[in-house]
């Protein structure tokens, strides 16, 4: 048995160097050359400044923008660093609400949000993804229904025609992969950037 000690140390060290250092560093190098944009985090720059990542949702509150889903992420409380407080779309601390199916807190939150949205647009059914928090708290997408639901509000805020906005939503809708995998979706940040571009023309 004693003769197993030498390989236990040396085989471990060598496999550690191969899989723990050589492999991730080589992959970082190769990926940085072949897919430089993705490797850095699919960042979007506007006027030389990073405004976000295509893949990471951000918080939109203003009426003139399409809103993403509610986010349950938290961050350190500025008033008391031992506590955490709600910081929606905190991309340095991802997470979901973890509220269960019979949670009263969840039921109350849903009820409140549904009422708010019904007041905003009484003509359509409230899409479920617009009132539920995502798993990561950073969901960059909403369903096409959730985007169309918000069209009247944005049309009013931007003084644009609803038809133009609906057209933009349809244009930015990504279908299922190969018509099969995943769900149809609209990237909120990309759509809002397109809105701003259209407005500045």
């Amino acid at each position, binding site marked *: *048995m004693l003769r*197993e000690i*030498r390989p*236990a140390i*040396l085989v*471990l060290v060598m*496999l*550690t160097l*191969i899989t*723990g250092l050589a*492999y*991730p560093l080589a*992959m*970082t190098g190769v*990926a940085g050359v072949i*897919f430089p944009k*993705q*490797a*850095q*985090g699919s*960042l979007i720059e506007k006027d030389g*400044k*990073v*405004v976000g*990542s295509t*893949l*990471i949702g*951000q918080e939109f509150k*203003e009426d003139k*923008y399409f809103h993403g889903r509610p986010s349950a992420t938290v961050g350190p409380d500025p008033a008391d660093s031992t506590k955490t407080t709600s910081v929606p779309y905190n991309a*340095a*601390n991802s997470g*979901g*609400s*973890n509220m*269960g*199916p*019979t*949670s*009263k807190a969840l*039921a109350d939150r*849903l009820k409140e949000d549904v009422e708010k949205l019904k007041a905003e647009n009484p003509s359509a*059914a409230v899409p*479920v*993804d617009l*009132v*539920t*928090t995502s*798993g*990561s708290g*950073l*969901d960059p*997408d909403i369903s096409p229904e959730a985007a169309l639901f918000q069209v009247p509000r944005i049309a009013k805020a931007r003084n644009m025609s609803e038809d133009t906005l609906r057209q933009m939503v349809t244009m930015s809708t990504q279908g*299922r*992969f190969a018509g*099969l*995998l*995943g769900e149809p*979706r609209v990237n909120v940040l990309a759509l*809002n950037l397109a809105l701003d571009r259209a407005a500045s023309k």
Partner: protein
Amino acid sequence: MTAIGWTQIILYCVIVAALAKLLGWYMTRVFNGESTFLSPVLHPIESAIYWIGGVDARREQHWLTYTVAMLLFHVGGVLIIYGLMRLQASLPFNPAEMSAVAEDLSFNTAISFITNTNWQNYGGESTLSYLTQMIGLTHQNFLSAATGIVLAVALIRGFARSSMRTVGNFWVDVTRCTLYVLLPICIVFTLFLVWQGMPQTLGPYVEATTLEGAKQTIAVGPVASQVAIKMLGTNGGGFFNANAAHPFENPTALSNFVQMLSIFVLGAALTNVFGRMVGDQRQGWAILAVMGVLFIAGVAIAYWAEANGTSTLSSLGLTGGNMEGKEVRFGIVASSLFAVITTAASCGAVNAMHDSFTALGGMIPLINMQLGEIIVGGVGAGMYGMLLFIVLAIFVAGLMVGRTPEYVGKKIEAREVKMAMLAILILPLMILGWTAVAVVYPTATASMANAGPHGFSEVLYAYSSQTANNGSAFGGLTGNIFFYNVTGAVAMFVGRFMMIVPAMAIAGSLAEKKSVPASAGTFPTTGGLFVGLVVGVILILGGLTFFPALALGPIVEHLAMNANTVF
């Protein structure tokens, strides 16, 4: 439930079966020591490792030596992870300036990674440096996966060999598994994932100014290289806190589908390796069929439950299923399917928050883990777990006809059955035992995030997940307290190694036995009767053991939900 949803599920199963055959062929060659198309590149590295490590590649080991070698290998693994976590503040590759991790959390995480559990009491992007993620976690993702696989191979050799005292050489198996199986797949897989949008950088976290002018710190890192092995090795420990729900850790529906395939592919391939090594591939397909039956049943229930949603949602007129805790790009079907796969295998990565699943949708992952993760299972661990249940099923069949049972030419006798029972009894002992302790300990119950039966489910899930070395969680439970860190580590350690040692004892005793040729009285183990028998034994054993606990958690919660009760 939709036709397009079921098409995705069926497509998934077909591809897994096809890959199982292909990889089964390749892995059999690797573990038989034959040369492969990668040998010209890898053989020199392999030889160098043996030379430096003082390994005589031709000398095989007795099952006990093999097991001791494996345990020694893990002692080193624990020390490396624990050391890195405690010292990360003063080590390089730490651009986010993470401080040292507390003792109990470091201990829990070290045990968690050597046991292939990857329970996340830590929050990746908020706790760990890049160095800890790479050397500590990425490397152990490889090694715990390789260990699981080679232990299964050793047990398979026990069935396949006749009158031999050895089961292989641990150092050779683990080196060949890492170099020939895991690394090449991971290299291709990493590049695919980066192409799909996963970051792979050593640069610092990105500061962005959002369209509305707010500051957003975006955590990045060497994500893809870790995620590749995290999925392939059924480790499941996320680079980020939200794991595969995080858009950087699972950017598209396609990356999600391929990640789901990678969870099952090696485990499924091992059934084929079994068939090839015992000389009849149908034996492997029969095992995969047992797994397939249990898997499809689980998927159907979870998908149905999640698509139906909750009474809270329907009372507000919200349709489209239970989207709380799920991502839009995956939707209901890919989230439910992922949850069943990740717990059927011992992966534990999540692309949706299991804590927010419906009561019945969340019960399927619980059951999958409590059965010991034998539905494909963790790489290797699923195979040896399933073989333990098969030993038991064969024993039951033998009792019915009053004849010494045989399986693939080996007589299953008292020693094997005792060892199999010993291993299987560990599951209820650790899962129900620790859950019982936790629910009467006020400090532990204070960690529950949800009130009512769901709080109990959170604790039951925590110990099921850790004992079965899964690593997924009902994440609301605040697991990072001393009590859960320590008891969880015990559950993970016992759950892993108290399964392995009896399984290896069986490997040793089987290898020494002579093979008996099949006769007219031999129970055929390739047909539907065998598949049905094994499924039955698994469900009866699991059902009898865990039904009372499930009744207190998800089942009563489902009834409460139907009565519109909230807590």
